[in-house]
């Protein structure tokens, strides 16, 4: 295969300046990742330690096979949400190997707000549930949660039930869920172990009941202890809600690993066996290659050259529809089709993309979307050229494609470009974003400009004088507001992506997610919607 020849000079002034800018964003990202590791106040942690408990993240590390990779999902969810429990919520979720099997792990942070569920935590769980089902992963839940955060209950109660529904739907699909209860799992929370294929309760720690002693007293006047109502021994010996009685946390995790060993193996579509050739251009250079300011254009091939094995890229229709680069390459040995924006999408680019998606479906090859577009081209000539129906073809292809999609936000994601390039609402299997990326209906300055034009027209129509000074101030405020709402920090907080990443890690993220999507059969779509011609 031909390899991409890079035109970037890592010694250039431009490269160095961009690298410095991007590094600032990466540093900020690291800071937020640091915040996401918060597992509760010192006093709660001390108390847990005194009782011989492991922290949520320690449980994950112990559950994972030694040296297993672990891809944490939505680590920054809720980080900007007012009144929430902070970065990442009270649950850590991610994918790693347990007893040699790729597996979704959810671990309640019992030492942070008692592991109770706020808005971000619930919606994170829902998104994780979707990933688990789509990727056909078995699950291990490490449970220690006080249930819904009561002040958020109105916002979450209606959606919360889906988490339990998902467990049993996965079970029907043959996907195992194992729940270990290390502490509280009461009321609704009791249905996490309750719905699971396997449940493991830790002795003298698990508390699983529909109602605790005070509520039971209120309801029926019965007096009962925690242990009597929902202790591990009762559930293991009498109710049968627990399948395994674990001595301690280590024992519980050991049991889960044992169970996982006997669950059925995945049937990977493909596993690379050849040695992997790293890119000719070092992925470290991505910091200088991808512009920190999305307004600055760059050739997406420069990025592909730093993520594809051997920098090799078999480009499709290179001379046609040049603002969308399409082609196939391998990443860590996995074949993949790439669609990357080189600016605004024209009719030709949209048509080319639609064709490329069909071809990848015919050949059962997963797709990666590298989003960096201000949207579809506007203007008289383009409308006449049918940009709408051509854009629709791309959306048709993206929507009906049945090979797995992975979307990476690497710059701007504006307007219908977001849709055509497989944004959140088009349900890619995974969606990750660079910290410089922006998502909005249009660029903030364009939006403010549009607003100004409308206001000016309104003023003219009603014969009122147009306050230039006030308009300028308003415009500035609008820009700032739109900028912050469009930022990657806001997006990730709102769970519009599955995580932000350091661009240097792109290849590892893609390798891991490709391994996950390749872990089951891949079958492209046979049919699409009507192609408007």
């Amino acid at each position, binding site marked *: 295969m031909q390899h991409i020849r890079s035109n970037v000079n890592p010694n250039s002034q431009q490269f160095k300046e961009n690298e410095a800018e991007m590094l600032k964003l990466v540093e900020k990202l690291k800071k937020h990742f640091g915040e996401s590791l918060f597992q509760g106040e010192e006093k709660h942690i001390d108390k847990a330690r005194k009782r011989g408990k492991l922290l949520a993240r320690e449980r994950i590390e112990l559950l994972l096979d030694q040296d297993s*990779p*672990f891809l944490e999902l939505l680590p920054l969810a809720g980080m900007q949400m007012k009144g929430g429990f902070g970065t990442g919520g009270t649950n850590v979720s991610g994918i790693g190997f347990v007893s040699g099997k790729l597996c979704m792990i959810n671990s309640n942070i019992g030492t942070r707000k008692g592991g109770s569920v706020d808005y971000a935590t619930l919606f994170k769980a829902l998104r994780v549930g979707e990933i688990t089902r789509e990727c056909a992963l078995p699950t291990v839940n490490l449970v220690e949660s006080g249930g819904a955060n009561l002040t958020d209950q109105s916002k979450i109660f209606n959606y919360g039930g889906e988490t339990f529904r998902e467990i049993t739907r996965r079970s029907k699909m043959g996907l195992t869920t194992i729940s270990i209860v290390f502490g509280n799992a009461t009321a609704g929370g009791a249905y996490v172990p309750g719905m699971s294929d396997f449940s493991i309760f830790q002795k003298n720690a698990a508390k699983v009941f529909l109602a605790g002693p005070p509520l039971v007293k209120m309801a029926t006047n019965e007096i009962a202890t925690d242990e009597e109502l929902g202790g591990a021994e009762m559930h293991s010996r009498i109710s049968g809600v627990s399948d395994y009685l674990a001595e301690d946390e280590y024992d519980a*995790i050991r049991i889960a690993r044992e169970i996982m060993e006997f669950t059925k193996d995945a049937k990977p579509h493909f596993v690379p066996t050849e040695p992997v050739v790293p890119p000719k251009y070092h992925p470290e250079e991505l910091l200088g290659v991808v512009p920190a300011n999305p307004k600055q254009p760059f050739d997406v091939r420069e990025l592909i050259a730093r993520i594809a094995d051997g920098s090799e890229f078999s480009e499709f229709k290179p001379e046609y529809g040049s603002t969308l680069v399409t082609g196939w390459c391998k990443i860590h040995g996995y074949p993949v089709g790439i669609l990357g924006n080189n600016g605004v999408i024209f009719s030709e680019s949209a048509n080319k993309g639609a064709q490329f998606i069909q071809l990848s479906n015919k050949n059962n090859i997963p797709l990666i979307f590298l989003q960096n577009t201000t949207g579809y081209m506007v203007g008289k000539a383009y409308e006449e050229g049918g940009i709408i129906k051509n854009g629709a073809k791309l959306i048709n292809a993206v929507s009906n494609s049945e090979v797995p999609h992975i979307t990476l936000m690497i710059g701007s994601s504006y307007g219908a470009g977001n849709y055509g390039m497989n944004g959140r609402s088009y349900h890619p299997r995974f969606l990750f974003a660079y910290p410089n990326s922006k998502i909005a209906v249009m660029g903030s300055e364009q939006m403010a400009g549009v607003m100004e034009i409308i206001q000016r027209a309104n003023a003219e129509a009603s014969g009122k004088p147009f306050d230039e000074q006030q308009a300028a101030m308003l415009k500035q405020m609008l820009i700032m507001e739109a900028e912050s709402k469009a930022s990657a920090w806001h997006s990730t907080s709102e769970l519009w992506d599955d995580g932000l990443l350091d661009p240097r890690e792109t290849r590892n993220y893609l390798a891991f997610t490709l391994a996950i999507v390749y*872990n089951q059969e891949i079958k492209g779509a046979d049919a699409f919607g009507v192609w408007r011609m």
Partner: protein
Amino acid sequence: METIHTLLIANRGEIASRIIRTCKKMGIRSVAVYSDADRNSPYTRQADLAIHIGESAPASSYLVQDKIIEAAKKSGANAIHPGYGFLSENANFAQRCADEGIIFVGPNVKAIEEMGSKSRAKALMQEHGVPTVPGYQGEDQSIETLTSAALKIGFPLLLKATAGGGGKGMRIIHHESELTTGIEAAKRESLSAFGNDELIIEKYVASGRHIEFQIFGDKHGNAIHLLERECTIQRRYQKVVEESPSPVLTEDLRKKMGEAAVKAALALNYDNAGTVEFIFDEQVNEFYFLEVNTRLQVEHPVTEEVTGLDLVEMQIEMAQGEKLQLQQADVKGKGYALELRLYAEDAANDFTPVTGTLTRFEWPKVNGLRMETAVESGSEISVFYDPMIAKMIMHDTTRKGVYRKMRYVLENMVCQGMVTNQPFLLELVKNEAVIHGKYDTHFIANNLHTIENKHYTEYELSLFLAAATLIDWKKRDNKKTILRSLPSGWRNNFYEFQKNTWLINEEANELQYRHLDSEFLMKFGDREFITHLLSIDNQSIRMEVEGAMYVFNYSSVGENYFLQHGTMGNLSIKKKARFPEREIQKTPGGYEAPMPSTIVKILVEPGKQVAIGEPLLVISSMKMENTLLAEEAGIVSEIFVQEGQNVEAGYLLLTLKSEE
């Protein structure tokens, strides 16, 4: 007399190999015998013929005279060499050979008989004016008589099996309180090892040196000695270091002791190889006769190296009735020789014998090194025999040279698969007192804390653990089927390092690591360091840490790792399981076998009230007896074994109900 054309070696291991070697040199057909456990031992392949003689326990094979004689007849052997141990000092056997018309390569029956009883040997020596240690060697062997004799001699004293040797059936008694159990155990041990429970009691010479003379006699009334060997450094009354010449003997003393040894030989009409043992009291410059060993000694190579003679060849010549070619005046020592015994034993744990498979056994080629080995890579050290792996003999023109070379050999020898005394031996040859010959028979006991097990510095330890961790990591890495190219242990939101916990003598040491692109960031204690894994195969690992390259030889069996580094030494470590075994409901008051062993005697019965420290059971492992004592007062509730039963380490023997 008849010429030996076919020689059966009624022995096993290194001594069998040694004798076969001389047979080949002399053009004599060699016949090996082997038990079940020795089916794959190297000596069976070295011999011209090998005959199976029964089950592994010596009592079913190497000690069964009928089987040996039958093997000799079957193979047409007209001579038997008994080696050392087993039947080597059994007068009955020597007689049996004579009766069957087979040449016994050893002294005459009468000499064996007389020296077989330590008490009679002592009396004979006294008659011939050889100085002896005060003690009791009477025929009355009742416990009462032995006890009162012991009390008269005073403590500390030594109980020895009359028929014994090599430390078996020998114990030192410090206090009256230990006397009765001591006498009983010594008798029992002696009975099981030699078929005779007679004991002698001797004053224990506290700071003596053990010096022995190699003697040789022919059937024509000639006897000479082949100089001395000093075997003072012992552990558990068994020799570990033997050297010649002794660093403390003056020419005058050598002459005197040598003459006494020859006197002893002549008194016995001694007509083959033997050893006259003396205890030499440095303080008063006196020496006492201890015993005559009527066999070829384990440490005979020391004499061979110093004198340039082949003692086995001489033995065969004497047995054929030839005349000693050598005059006393011809015997001249050349240079120095040192022998160390490499054992599968845990020096840090009271030299407890260990068993296992030798996964790798290699040593550097050094001029003057002679290895007498019983084993090879892949051999098993079983519970049935002495756990000796090899004898390492070094010869050089100077004593310093001998020690320097031996040190180099020990540093670079790779002997892996089980705990051995290699590090202990290394510490011994590095020890200043040993190098200067300043030691007595208590040297090890008194200096164990300084030479016991090498204490690695934190830095050295971190290197060993880093190497072990990488070997362990590599094993897992090789097994990966998917995402092999992703950095090991990759995290997008890093939380903590990967951990390996290594047990060194039960003590846990944690090494943390994180795989970065091409290197490992490691953490041991408070120190963080970068390790580059340069190369690794299934025998060695090469890595770079802080600007220095380290090569370790290794072998691993399951979770056990054996690492060896040229200058840092050896380390045997075990990977701690990530998940502890479910807390076994350890039987309260349960007593378990500490090692694979045989139940010799059960001293209590269910329902018996026992006091703290009271003996419960006697077990034996690798011919060493051990008494299990009650750790607390209580009542014996159940006994799960029978006398004679073989049990694995950790086997529950009995339970004791405590008194509360």
